[in-house]
């Protein structure tokens, strides 16, 4: 059946049917897997960087564990499901008194390992596949592990987790569509992979584009007469059912109606307030938070070449579709942040790996041809005769080695290590550390300084305002510029400021840091906006100014107010009548 999509004349020679051939990738990958995962573990555990977005999710998860409610005690433009998913690492960290950065890094490393092992288990089912694809399995898996090495700065981002959860499903679907009906894959693995992928998709529904496009691509392959039966598999059912369950479960999230009634309409109008480059700019992948794509020109060349060679290998075509779908996901989000390109770059990098395998195969076949002095390309080494199995394993090893050697000089051109292009500069950490102590409440009001979340998580300070990042005020400023949305902005702005004031009055933070600079060169700043809306008289009455720190205005709770408020609380507890309103 594979034969129909292969251009070679002697197709039978290129089909692998040996029953034990699945052992090949496993045997071949033991050493690379130990080395790469070991290296990954060393790199991530020695740096223990928690990405700014992950730090934010973990901070909110921590608040959930403290009994705080989403959309009332903390608000974000994302649906709150991600915060619930981040609860287990926080709980583990608290239960075993291990730093959250360590637990988080180990969780993501665990996800990498799990994804790799699941993929290997899926590949056990390889019974009949084209020779090219069979030889590409080792490099593909190795490339998948190598890709994780460049994600240092974005380690654990939603896109990274999605790629990890999607990879086993990708292999599973590839095998399902390229093998005869009745391919045996353990149902438990299939259901687990489907569910895990569905959860990752539910966090960011744009990810659904990738499996949908791939299914569409696979369905166009001249494989099965009853092709729709391939859809009736445990992983498909579990994926759809889990998505539906997530949807139902999300309706039970406390205060979720506030999200849909207030924030979804508001954010959909005001999201343009944040860095919105045009698609052409985005296609250069020169993201403000680092770059993970190596050479854009090379990527284009590889994709064009893959398109023309896609008839040679199903994997090439599938990975080409993955890259295109990843690109759509990246463009659809319209922000150009580099982590959003992770699915696209992963697809592209895996595609490059398979392309290199094709080159390696070509080179080896030429060498064999020259050595044997044959005029015709069909050396016995390439035969699928079971008696030649050991020779085929040798050739697989040789192909893997050639691939790995070919990858050496060009890997830095293909992808870029994110820790070499993005970093976190601790802008408020010293200030917070020196002026507050662990578990103190602090308020950092900012519109796009994600480092603040990392500081609060690392230093164990409690956010004292529902707007852990103050996205709505930047949105109201943006909405004020349009006549159609101005009224809504003017209605929302005082409401948001009064909520900030209420929160500060209620939580009585020890330190307040307010962003005082302009992100885009305009004269609007968060500090100015808050001043115009009366924050000085509203909630900063009990605070004294400390001074500027990296363009933040810093306020510290007055010592006298700290003691007096404590005294009032004590009096209130003892006799409510002693304090007159």
């Amino acid at each position, binding site marked *: 059946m594979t034969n129909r999509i292969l251009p070679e004349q002697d197709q039978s020679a290129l089909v692998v049917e040996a029953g034990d051939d699945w052992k090949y990738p496993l045997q071949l990958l033991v*050493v690379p897997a130990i080395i790469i995962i070991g290296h990954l573990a060393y790199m991530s555990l020695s740096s223990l960087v928690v990405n700014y977005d992950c730090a934010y999710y973990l901070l909110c998860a921590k608040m959930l564990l403290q009994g705080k409610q989403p959309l009332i005690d903390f608000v974000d433009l994302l649906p709150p499901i991600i915060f619930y998913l981040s609860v287990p690492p926080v709980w583990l960290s608290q239960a075993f008194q291990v730093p959250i950065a360590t637990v988080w890094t180990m969780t993501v490393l665990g996800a990498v390992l799990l994804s790799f092992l699941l993929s290997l288990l899926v590949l056990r089912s390889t019974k009949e596949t084209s020779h090219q694809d069979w030889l590409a399995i080792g490099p593909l898996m190795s490339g998948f592990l190598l890709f994780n090495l460049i994600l240092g700065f974005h380690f654990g981002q939603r896109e990274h987790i999605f790629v990890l959860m999607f990879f086993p499903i990708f292999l599973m679907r590839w095998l399902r569509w390229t093998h005869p009906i009745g391919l045996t894959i353990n149902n438990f693995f299939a259901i687990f992979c489907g569910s895990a992928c569905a959860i990752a998709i539910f966090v960011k529904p744009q990810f659904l584009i990738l499996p949908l496009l791939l299914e569409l691509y696979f369905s166009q392959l001249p494989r099965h007469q009853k092709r729709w039966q391939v859809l009736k598999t445990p992983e498909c059912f579990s994926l759809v059912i889990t998505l539906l369950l997530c949807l139902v479960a999300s309706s039970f999230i406390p205060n979720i109606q506030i999200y849909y009634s207030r924030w979804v309409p508001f954010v959909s109008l005001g999201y343009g307030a944040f860095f919105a480059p045009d698609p052409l700019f985005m296609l250069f992948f020169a993201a403000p938070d680092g770059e993970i794509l*190596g050479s854009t020109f090379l990527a284009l060349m590889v994709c064009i070449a893959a398109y023309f060679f896609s008839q040679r290998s199903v994997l090439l075509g599938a990975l080409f579709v993955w890259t295109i779908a990843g690109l759509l996901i990246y463009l659809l989000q319209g922000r150009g942040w580099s982590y959003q390109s992770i699915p696209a770059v992963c697809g592209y990098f895996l595609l490059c790996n398979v392309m290199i395998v094709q080159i390696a195969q070509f080179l080896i076949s030429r060498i064999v041809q020259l050595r044997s002095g044959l005029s015709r390309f069909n050396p016995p080494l390439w035969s699928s005769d079971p008696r030649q199995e050991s020779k085929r394993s040798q050739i697989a090893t040789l192909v893997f080695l050639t691939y790995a050697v070919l990858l*050496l000089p060009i*890997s830095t051109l293909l992808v870029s*290590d994110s820790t*070499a292009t993005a970093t976190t500069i601790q802008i408020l950490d010293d200030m917070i550390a020196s002026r507050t102590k662990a578990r103190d409440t602090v308020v950092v009001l900012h519109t796009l300084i994600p480092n603040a979340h990392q500081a609060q998580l690392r230093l164990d300070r409690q956010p004292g305002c529902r707007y852990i990042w103050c996205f709505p005020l930047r949105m109201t400023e943006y909405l004020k510029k349009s006549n159609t949305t101005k009224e809504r902005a003017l209605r929302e702005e005082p409401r948001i400021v009064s909520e900030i004031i209420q929160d500060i009055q209620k939580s009585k933070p020890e330190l307040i840091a307010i962003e005082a600079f302009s992100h885009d060169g305009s004269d609007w700043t968060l500090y100015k906006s808050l001043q115009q809306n009366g924050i*000085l008289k509203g909630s900063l009455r009990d605070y004294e100014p400390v*001074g*500027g720190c990296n363009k933040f205005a810093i306020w510290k709770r007055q010592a006298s107010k700290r003691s007096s408020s404590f005294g009032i609380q004590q009096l209130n507890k003892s006799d409510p009548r002693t304090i007159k309103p």
Partner: protein
Amino acid sequence: MKQGLITVFEVVLIAAVVCCNCWLIQTPLIDGWSMSLLDKYCQTISDIAFLDRYIKLHPTDWRAYRARAQAYWVDSYWDRVVADSTQALELKKDDVVSRRLRAYSYYQLDKDDASLSDYNILINSGRGEAQDYAYRSLVNSQTKRFESAASDAAIAVKKDSLCAPAYYARGLSEFHGGSDKDALNDAKLACQLDYELPMPYVLMAMIFNKKQKFDRAILMCEAGLQYDPTNGAAHWQIAAAQVNLKDYDKAIDSCTVALSLADHRAEKSGALSTRALAQFHRSRNEEAIADATKALIFDPECLLAYEVRAMSHDRLNHTNEAAQDREAAKRIKERMTSFQNKTSKSDQNNGTAVITKEQREHNKIHESTNTLRPAPSIKDQRSHRK
């Protein structure tokens, strides 16, 4: 046996190649290139990330430390500029760029002595440029070495007639010397040469405040704030104008905002003493004394703080304290007057600004709100990122 040997050999080979792959895939592309290419990389955070990696691999390369200091300088992370330029200077003692970066960062961090020491080394080595003289002048102004400030500013302008900080420094020293007209001209020139520098606007606001053109002073501060919304000195000068316009509540708020943004002692003492004056006018004498006392912690020679505290003590019948403060204010005034007389003599000789005694008397109260130096922070020189 033969089969086993081949397998072991293959395993070793695979391990070696994969190890190389792990290492190479994480190696920044530029690593094999010349360090001269780093210059174009010194504009963004991503360059800092790259240089972090580079320095790990090449910990003795002074150019890398200097390049990272330059990258931090663009984003105004002064303490990190100091750390990296110190490292660069340890590896190459006579590097002018690192010395300049450190001197400027010390100045931004309000470490006048360290800044002055670096500028002195730089200028004494004969490699000082106009901007070095200009900033040394500003440091001297801050430390009240007005004569040295004036001479440095003059050299700076002479060395480079297109150097905006040089004109600002000269304008500031002229302002301290009482030559408001010249100071205004120099501040205007500084703005024309580099319209994004906020401090010349603040200097103009000070001059307009002194000339009782309070609306124009506020306009100037707002112009400065447009380029640097974090400039505490601009808020302080707005407060000074508001005090003179008898809008005391607003003045108190503006001073509080200035204090929340101020990162220099001069800004803090100026804002506190102006707030003390506004509190005094609001008859909140205790608050006025508290603010003036705080101002004197930041600047023990703050004339306005002594004056306001003396007046507040008077109201509270603290005769001894009032007398002490008045005495201190008198001493500072005498010192200022002697410097202004020297300057006005030289101005008369040059045929430039002449300020009459009547005018000085008339402006007395306004002058007293402005005798402090503005925080000479030339902030926000950051260029926009890619």
